[in-house]
């Protein structure tokens, strides 16, 4: 190298190093044009009270918003249902507001698929169809009793040919029907776990799914730790050790469909104890005698073999049921999921009735609503919002499908529910839906049902819109939940019910209000006079704002009295309800019982497109972003499979493949598959992940209520090709692999 080139080279090197250090990216700080809410702090955030709408439990939540963005959802501490807690789905809802796959424009199906149309055109199209339909339409939602259902029912409810349908939580109608004779009016049974000393959960996965998991979770806390000297004891009877069962003290692996038998056997011992100890109860002695006679067939010695447990276990349930009073019996999916669900529930509620008589004054039953239950406030609110319990459930879905097949409906409105995905194959919902001329799907995301609709209306997220909600479960006091927008709409959506109002008005139909917000205010005004505890001196607008600050209205001023003893005639007749019919199974010739179950995250499948929920480890298996089938290690050994091996699970209705997860907490003759996976059209995160267990299920129904018997399916399980690496967060037996957590 010569000097010249050397100097050139080093000069370049030197300047290069200076240039590298020189660059600086400038950043901007963008202020508001108008500071929001003078006096409030837009920098650290404001909290707004509203109601979570991820399921129909109706939990009150508070949402922290910063700079107009929703940041965090927490339970509303003063709300009687959530009591300050919020579940995983509620917490993850902030993600769905800002989800990149949110629908942003109305879409009308044309020859070449969906095309975006403007809002005005959407209103025109709907109003045109409403005029043509002349009342022959159906409204299908997820069972919610809210402003949207209220508006639709006020417009169309009295028209000939209108049908209201709630695609509710499976087993809903069985819960209402079971033990109904012992109650004064239709209700969801909610025994008082908070104040109980001993509880038997009959297949009730209440802390993770069902009508009100957050409330039950709070009750569990109260039962265990809420009292200074009493720690409640819980026993779980069912086919699988769910995460609910995992927090109980004892798991009894009862054969599927036999929980009613167990309840009756426990009742037999309880009645025996009452008679032999001559306990002074309000129940007439001759009724006791009548029951004792019919329950003789359910003596533990006689049924222990069927229940696959020693007879003394049944005594060990019955004796504390009397001695550790107050005690409660709670029934859930393992009861309602069979054809004998209502019969089993009759037995469980019978146990509860006995328990209340034994522990009179000690228990406050939550289902007690108002002094005049039939005409009471709760019933009138329900009627005002349109969807009563008869409109909810599988039986009504079957009626809808039959109607669709017969061409009874010119159009349908489907709001925030995905029946094409979450109903059993045996119902054949998709085929029936294709026979309806015009369907409108009100949704936040494209899903399997929206894809089948004629027109899709992108709705506000529940954080962005108005509603009023009557929760299915009311904890001893009537509750009217309010849902208010906590942020401005993130994308150009409109409230679905506002569009329906506009279309109905354009079709010259009588509408209850000009907007959903007005409707909500109207409902508050309608019931204001009966809202005990609410300040009477406020004007209507201030009163409404006062309720919004709390998240709604509820009152503990209404006396929550102990359950009255049913009248003698009812008790006398109840003998006829004390029976345990055999369960029936679709595919009875197959060797394994299929146990589909809801997880906390996926619910019925709506959680699958949410990354936070996919990432949250399943409480039992710790699996994430993963689909699986649980089977007992003995079963796995017999099939010659280990964790991660693929197996094919099949029934007459279809088949799925799933990777095996050996799990000790399940009967060897049962395989469990989580619900909510296997979407075919629900966005990048959900589509193609796992398989849909609903495709294996037939359409068997409960003999009494018509509820879907979703645990009444038997299946074949065979080893299949391939393996999958299981994405686990931890070892399912715990850090010490069973040394601390003993199964």
């Amino acid at each position, binding site marked *: 190298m010569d000097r010249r080139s050397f100097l050139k080279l080093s000069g370049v090197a030197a300047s290069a190093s200076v240039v590298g250090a020189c660059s600086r990216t400038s*950043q901007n700080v963008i202020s508001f044009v108008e500071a929001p809410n003078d006096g409030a702090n837009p920098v650290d955030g404001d909290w707004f009270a509203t109601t979570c709408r991820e399921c129909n439990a109706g939990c009150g939540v508070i949402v922290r918003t910063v700079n107009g963005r929703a940041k965090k959802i927490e339970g509303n501490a003063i709300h009687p249902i959530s009591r300050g807690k919020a579940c995983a789905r509620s917490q993850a809802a902030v993600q769905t507001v800002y989800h990149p796959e949110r629908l942003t424009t109305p879409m009308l199906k044309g020859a070449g698929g969906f095309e975006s149309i403007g809002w005005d055109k959407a209103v025109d199209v709907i109003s045109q169809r409403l005029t043509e339909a002349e009342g022959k339409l159906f409204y299908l939602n997820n069972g919610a009793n809210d402003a949207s259902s209220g508006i639709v029912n006020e417009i169309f409810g009295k028209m000939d040919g209108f049908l209201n349908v709630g695609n509710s939580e499976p087993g809903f109608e069985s819960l209402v029907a079971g033990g109904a004779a012992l109650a004064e009016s239709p209700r969801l049974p909610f025994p008082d776990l908070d104040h109980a000393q001993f509880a038997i959960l009959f297949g009730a996965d209440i802390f993770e799914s069902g009508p009100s998991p957050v409330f039950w979770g709070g009750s569990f806390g109260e039962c265990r730790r809420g009292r200074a000297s009493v720690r409640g004891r819980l026993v779980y009877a069912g086919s699988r050790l769910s995460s609910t069962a995992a927090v109980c003290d004892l798991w009894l692996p009862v054969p599927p469909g036999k929980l009613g038998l167990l309840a009756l056997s426990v009742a037999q011992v309880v009645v025996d104890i009452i008679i032999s100890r001559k306990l002074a109860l309000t129940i007439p002695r001759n009724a006791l005698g009548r029951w004792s006679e019919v329950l003789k067939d359910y003596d533990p010695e006689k049924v222990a073999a069927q229940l696959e447990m020693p007879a003394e276990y049944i005594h060990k349930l019955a004796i504390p049921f009397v001695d550790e009073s107050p005690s409660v019996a709670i029934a859930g999916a393992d009861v309602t999921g069979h054809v004998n669900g209502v019969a089993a529930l009759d037995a469980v509620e019978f146990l509860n009735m006995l328990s209340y008589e034994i522990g009179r004054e000690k228990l406050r039953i939550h289902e007690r609503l108002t002094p005049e239950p039939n005409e009471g406030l709760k019933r009138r609110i329900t009627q005002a919002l349109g969807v009563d319990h008869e409109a909810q459930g599988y039986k009504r879905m079957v009626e809808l499908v039959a109607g669709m097949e017969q061409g009874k409906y010119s159009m349908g409105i489907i709001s925030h529910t995905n029946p094409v995905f979450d109903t059993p194959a045996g119902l054949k919902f998709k085929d029936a839906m294709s026979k309806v001329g015009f369907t409108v799907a009100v949704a936040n995301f494209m899903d399997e049902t929206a894809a089948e609709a004629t027109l899709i209306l992108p709705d506000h997220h529940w954080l962005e819109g108005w509603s009023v909600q009557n929760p299915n479960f009311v904890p001893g006091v009537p509750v009217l939940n309010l849902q208010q927008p906590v942020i401005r709409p993130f994308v150009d959506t409109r409230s679905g019910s506002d569009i329906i109002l506009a279309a109905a008005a354009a079709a010259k139909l009588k509408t209850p209000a000009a907007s959903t917000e007005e409707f909500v205010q109207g409902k508050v005004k309608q019931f204001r006079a009966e809202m005990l505890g609410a300040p009477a001196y406020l004007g209507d607008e201030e009163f409404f704002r006062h309720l919004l600050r709390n998240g709604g209205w509820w009152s503990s001023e209404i006396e929550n009295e102990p359950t009255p003893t049913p009248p003698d005639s009812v008790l006398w007749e109840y003998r006829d309800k004390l029976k345990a019919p055999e369960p029936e199974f679709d595919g009875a010739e197959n060797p394994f019982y299929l146990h589909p179950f809801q997880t906390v995250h996926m619910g019925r499948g709506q959680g699958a497109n949410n990354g936070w929920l996919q990432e949250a480890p399943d409480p039992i298996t710790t699996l994430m972003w993963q689909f699986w089938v649980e089977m007992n290690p003995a079963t796995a050994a017999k099939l010659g499979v280990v964790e991660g091996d693929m197996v094919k699970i099949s029934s007459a209705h279809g088949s799925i493949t799933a990777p095996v997860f050996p799990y000790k907490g399940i009967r060897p003759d049962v395989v469990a598959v989580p619900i909510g996976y296997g979407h075919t059209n629900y966005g990048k995160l959900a589509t193609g992940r796992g398989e849909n267990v609903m495709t294996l299920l037939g359409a068997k129904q409960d003999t009494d209520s018509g509820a879907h018997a979703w645990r009444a399916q038997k299946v074949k399980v065979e080893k299949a090709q391939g393996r999958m690496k299981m994405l686990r967060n931890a070892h399912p037996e715990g850090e010490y692999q069973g040394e601390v957590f003993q199964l």
Partner: protein
Amino acid sequence: MSFSKFSPIAKMVIAFITTAGMGGGVFAAIVYFGPIWLTTWAPAQPIKFSHKLHAGTNKISCEYCHSYARRSEMASIPSADRCVYCHDYIKADAPEIVKVMDHYNGDKPIEWVKVFDLPDHVWFNHKRHIAKDVPCQKCHGPVETMDVVSRTNEFSMGFCLACHQENEAPTDCWTCHT
């Protein structure tokens, strides 16, 4: 003595040492002079707002505009409507004020250029410092003398720690690196 007279290996060694030395020198210059150079960072802003005129001559309190400083982690840049409170009628025809009104009336936020910033791994809470009566100028310098705001202090960890040590404020890691 000609460079070319050295052996090839010797030439390479000398070339390497020289380059390294020059590079090192440049680097040292940046490290030594850099802070001063960086703190004369006085970027041009979309609106020629003068703190000297408002906070100095007119003695308007810092917290009148930066109103969230005592209530929040962040001091916050005032919203456009804060300017409008006065300039709706004071010097409403001045060109810079017309620009502000255009932003306000057109609902367009003003995109200020950040002068004071901390890296993401540092958490600073204004509210606590104001509660302890730390004057704004302590960190931000004599802002009331500046027509265009510039950084007079280097926001290095040493700068923060020195004051924390002097005033017996917490110096454990989680205080700021939370």
